[in-house]
């Protein structure tokens, strides 16, 4: 037998030394690469640009947000602190340091509410690819980006009831005028609609691509469906399609705060819908986008652009009527009688 014990021991001692060195090198490399976090680099960038406020501590900036059914740890500000800094004219900051557009942050403090309450995403994550899961990827929470970000307003506000939620209001109106509620229900919402199609409160979770396809070419997702294609009314105009999709995405979101629906609808319709009754619009400053835009048109014609159905009792199935509960019967006398 050719087993040389001395040579074997020498060879494997050397082998052990080499392996140990290589493995140590791998482990050190791994530790160095994996211990660096993106937020550290971003905070360093912001600090070096001179924009970093001295009052703010460095490190992971997190907010514990508890509203309604939602409870989340929001760490978005760890990278996006630049959002809260005033945009100085002329100087263009790069992502993630860009300033938040509009004046929304003055009423929605990120220090109190965090960012994900409006923008979605996986707020707990500190890795951009995980934190920024986008609508349509069905990864984590859908991230509410433009053009859909107004969908988030529905969590605390009635669609259209506040300035800045115009797209959501237009989407909600499209929902009514296209008659989505004639077949689809929004059951858990306390609203009406038929059970013919699937509950729309859950469809938004299937993602943007799926919703788009279901509207423009429903047969692609459900062979033999009776749902008509909305290619002619929605497909030609991407803006209108985005309006409706914003509302459909909004339907999947929880209600974090009671926007006072019952109190609102307990009043006579004419309190708000002044064009239909006595008090004049404009005497008090309405924030409601619907009232400001439509005023006199908020009647049957707002949904039924053509001839009205002959059967007056048909109004009983009208989602507008259902949405407004009993209070509207005062106006829709044909049904109430």
């Amino acid at each position, binding site marked *: 037998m050719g087993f040389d014990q001395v040579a074997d*021991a020498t060879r494997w001692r050397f082998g*052990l030394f080499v*392996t140990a060195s290589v493995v140590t090198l791998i*482990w050190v490399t*791994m530790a160095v690469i994996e211990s660096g976090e993106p937020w550290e680099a971003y905070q360093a960038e912001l600090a070096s640009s001179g924009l970093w406020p001295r009052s703010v501590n460095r490190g992971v900036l997190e907010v514990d947000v508890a509203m309604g059914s939602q409870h989340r740890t929001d760490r978005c500000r760890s990278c996006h602190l630049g959002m809260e800094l005033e945009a100085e004219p002329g100087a263009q900051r790069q992502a993630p340091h860009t300033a938040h557009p509009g004046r929304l942050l003055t009423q929605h403090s990120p220090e109190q509410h965090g960012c994900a309450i409006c923008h979605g995403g996986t707020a707990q994550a500190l890795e951009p*690819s995980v934190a920024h899961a986008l609508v349509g990827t069905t990864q984590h929470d859908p991230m509410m980006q433009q053009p859909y970000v107004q969908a988030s307003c529905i969590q605390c506000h009635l669609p259209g009831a506040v300035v800045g939620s115009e797209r959501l209001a237009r989407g909600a109106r499209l929902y009514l005028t296209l008659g989505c509620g004639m077949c689809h229900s929004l059951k858990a919402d306390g609203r009406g609609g038929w059970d013919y199609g699937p509950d729309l409160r859950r469809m938004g979770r299937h993602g943007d691509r*799926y919703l788009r396809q279901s509207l423009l070419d429903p047969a692609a997702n459900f062979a033999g469906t009776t749902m008509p294609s909305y290619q002619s009314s929605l497909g030609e105009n991407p803006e209108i399609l985005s309006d409706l999709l914003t509302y459909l995405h909004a339907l999947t979101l929880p209600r974090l705060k009671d926007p006072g629906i019952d109190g609102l609808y307990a009043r006579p319709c004419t309190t708000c819908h002044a064009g239909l009754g006595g008090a004049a619009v404009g005497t008090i400053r309405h924030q409601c986008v619907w009232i400001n835009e439509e005023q006199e048109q908020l009647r049957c014609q707002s949904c039924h652009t053509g001839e009205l159905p002959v059967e007056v009792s048909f109004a009983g199935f009208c989602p507008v009527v259902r949405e407004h509960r009993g209070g509207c019967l005062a106006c829709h006398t044909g049904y109430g009688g």
Partner: protein
Amino acid sequence: MRRNFVYHLHPLKVTERALAPTTTFALGLVTLTLFLTTAVTGGLLMLYYVPTPEGAYASILDIEHLVTLGEPLRLMHRFAAHLMVVTVALHLLRIVAMGAYRCREINWLFGLSLLALVLALAFSGYLLPWDQTSYWAVRVVTNMLDHMPLFGVMAKPLLLGGSEVGGATLLRFYAMHVAVLPAFLVAFAVLHLWRIRRDGGLAYAGEASTVPAWPHLVLREGVIVLVVVGLLALWTLLIDSPLAPPADPMRPSNPEKAPWYFVGFQEMVSYSAVIGGFIFPGFFALLLLALPFLDRDDDAVGGWFASSAERLRLVVVAALTAAVVVAAVWMCAHPALAVLETWTQELVNPVTLSLALCLIAFAWVSNGSGLRSGLRAALAVLVVSLLVFTVVGICRGPDWAFFWPWEEYPGGI
């Protein structure tokens, strides 16, 4: 007694043959290293993990993003666990191919217990992230228990702590994963190592000269342990394994898939619940358990196959099995077969075909090369079929349709 036990865990002398890499491929040592890695990383993960449906997913996100080196820690734990399933299976195949279970019946049974424990540990850990993948995987696998008469029906509610996967299931799986199963695994692993020495080292029928374990064996062991640990660290750098969305019992993922080591059984169940979910696995397990008692031949133990004629027969059996099962799976998707009655499909399907092949191969090979070769042929048929079913199962997409791994699922769901 205690001395006897401790001194038998590691040898003082080994045969020169045992040092040759192709004798064992160090599969046992690699598995042991992987287990120790999962024990250390798992212990650290336990410091942060919260075993409740509300807290589990969030705590994994914290581990990934907030804990220093938490991400490689989780990846290493996960990869070592998956790899352990592979190395344990390969180790078992090596023992079968060498007939090394002869005169080592007890240790063979210890080994099979370790296989079951490794699978149970991997599976119980699979649920813990509480994301869509893990939640629906565990539902699929535990639903397969419905097809097992008596045992399955009794075990399912005990395992789940209810009729469905929920908070009670998560807590049970966690307790099993961090306490019960590891304790059993350590006990059986120690017994396994001790029995090797008690049985006189690696099984070998021939004569072999010995050398001292230090330095020849210990240095080799050191190198292998380091290589495994180094590869695990390299893996965490190269490959990420992102979480799926958080578990949502109201929203089934499509496809709902078992973990890869059980997806072969899921594929078999898709043809016939009783045959794929009970008869095939039951037969497989019984054959493994009975192997050292059926094969009474003590000659030629410890070598790779008895003769070139035997090897040729086994290769033919394996290749034919692969071809036939692949063809059968492919034909099952053919619309012409949809006209068959349900009861016909229960009897005529790829799983029954592979069971039939198993008997034919046993008869053919044992006739030519003896009982041991016949048993090896039977096992080869079962292993190759399970491999084919596993690969096909991995390739299943929405509605259990076939997709190549690089194909995108339609519909954006």
